[in-house]
């Protein structure tokens, strides 16, 4: 019985993540459109895009590693979703903890680097080097957030963190007990989502969307799927660590949408940093704030 529940969980969790992620991508595009005084895409637009991209008749693969890279990107995020507890689903979250999750979240980026390498497109290589630079930037405040969370709750297990916050009520939420860390976490989320001013590795007008430069058709479809997972993971992780998770989906959904709304809304007013400037900014501000937060917690 137990393994059947587990099997159901690990099938349904990525599926749910995909559906919620589609809605988040729709929100991202609609918010951007409204702020630019446009109408924005129709409701099913993210789904149309993905089906269209997977329905391409002819497309070129650059070789085995190119194919393998995209499988690693999509597969990496599917695995991440299995480790991310949401209301009603635990999945593998009890088997792995926050540190395992942080490792798994790196796999897609490395898969992308692998796949893009074989494309032999200079724009792709520049994009990947920038993406890994950006990862070097945001991983430091991210690790500090993990350390702070572990110090605060005395555990790195995500279901336990949720349980502690839900039993104690709003006063024990991460955002109340470690507000400085919550700010650092929010900025890190923004950088992780690669929104302006940190979209150095996408940069459509500069390096032609960087790692995605040679990705057409089904490869691009995979990346569109990954985009849904990416925004979903960022939202769910933040809510789990700082906003007490959710007792049910009615409470949970508004929280995760509110969290990702912040980067989506503020991104539009920014231009783009250079790769080095962005890195320095991330090492200066979110890292500094996170260090301050950590000091406050440990004192």
């Amino acid at each position, binding site marked *: 019985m137990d393994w059947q529940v587990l099997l159901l969980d690990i099938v349904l969790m990525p599926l749910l993540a995909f559906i919620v992620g589609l809605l988040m991508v729709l929100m991202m595009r609609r918010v951007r459109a409204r702020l*630019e005084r446009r109408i924005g895409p129709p409701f*099913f637009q993210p789904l*149309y895009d993905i*089906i269209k991209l997977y*329905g391409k008749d002819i*497309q070129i693969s650059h070789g085995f590693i190119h194919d393998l890279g995209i499988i690693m990107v999509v597969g990496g995020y599917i695995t991440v979703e299995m480790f991310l507890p949401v209301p009603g689903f635990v999945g593998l979250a009890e088997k792995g903890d926050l540190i395992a999750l942080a490792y798994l979240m790196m796999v897609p980026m490395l898969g992308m680097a692998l796949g893009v390498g074989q494309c032999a497109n200079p724009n792709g290589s520049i994009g990947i080097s920038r993406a890994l630079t950006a990862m070097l930037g945001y991983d430091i405040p991210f690790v500090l957030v993990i350390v702070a969370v572990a110090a605060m709750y005395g555990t790195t297990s995500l279901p336990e963190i949720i349980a502690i916050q839900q039993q104690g009520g709003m006063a024990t939420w991460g955002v109340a007990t470690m507000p400085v860390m919550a700010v650092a976490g929010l900025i890190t989320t923004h950088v992780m989502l690669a929104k302006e001013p940190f979209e150095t590795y996408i940069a459509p007008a500069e390096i032609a*969307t960087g790692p995605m430069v040679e990705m*057409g058709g089904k490869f*691009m479809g995979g990346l569109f799927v990954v985009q849904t997972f990416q925004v979903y993971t960022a939202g769910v992780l933040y809510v789990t660590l700082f906003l007490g998770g959710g007792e049910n989906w009615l409470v949970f959904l508004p929280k995760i949408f509110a969290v990702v709304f912040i980067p989506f809304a503020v991104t539009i007013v920014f231009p783009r940093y250079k790769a080095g400037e962005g890195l320095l900014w991330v090492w200066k501000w979110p890292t500094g704030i996170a260090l301050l937060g950590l000091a406050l917690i440990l004192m």
Partner: protein
Amino acid sequence: MSDKQISIPVAAGTGGSPYAGVFDRLIDFCRARSLFLLHYCTGCGAIELPPAMTSRYDMERLGIQPMATPRQADILLVTGYVATKTLKRIILTYEQMSAPRYVIGICSCTVNGGMYWQSYATVKKLNEYLPVDMYIAGCMPRPEAVITGLQQLMDRIEAGRADAWRDYYRRYDHYLGKQQALFGKHWQTPSDIIGEARQFDLLGPDTLGEHTTLLEQYQQPLEMPSTPVFGHGRDVPEDERS
């Protein structure tokens, strides 16, 4: 396999089952509602696209959005006059796009040369060199006209009738002949159109012919950095130089 191919016409029918074409219809439905544009904006028509995209006319509400590279794009939008030098780049770009791919010629210049009719360096009819799905005439067409044209293309895609891209594979010899007439017998692109036609079962009666024979005769291996396809380093024989 014999040399002579017997063509058996296969009608696109449901084959008796009411669900037979459901998946194809779903994909056509989605294709018509999600179009990624690649602008080849070297002509003056490009100036009409920013208003068509931004808040005044907002193409994204129809599912149309700009993309940065040919690999990602569905529509190649050629806005305005096409010089012979430009055409080389347009063909390279077009052949990199993943099919189904569509070409739209905007402005009079792509239709008949427009005000560049007497220019020695300008291509007059774009559809001699590439399979053009739709022309939007005007000098320049207003954003309303551009969007109306795109909507007509969307209707054709949804009905499954926008398949000019197949024509490029089926009649490659014809298109290649026109390209060779313009660029010389050494013309080649990095994309292997004949190989793709074989791979994806798109060989037509005119895929291979005298022009593709000429191509094979002069084709150079691609992975050679010392001999670029075109540009400064290309080794052009004396009789070709002009």
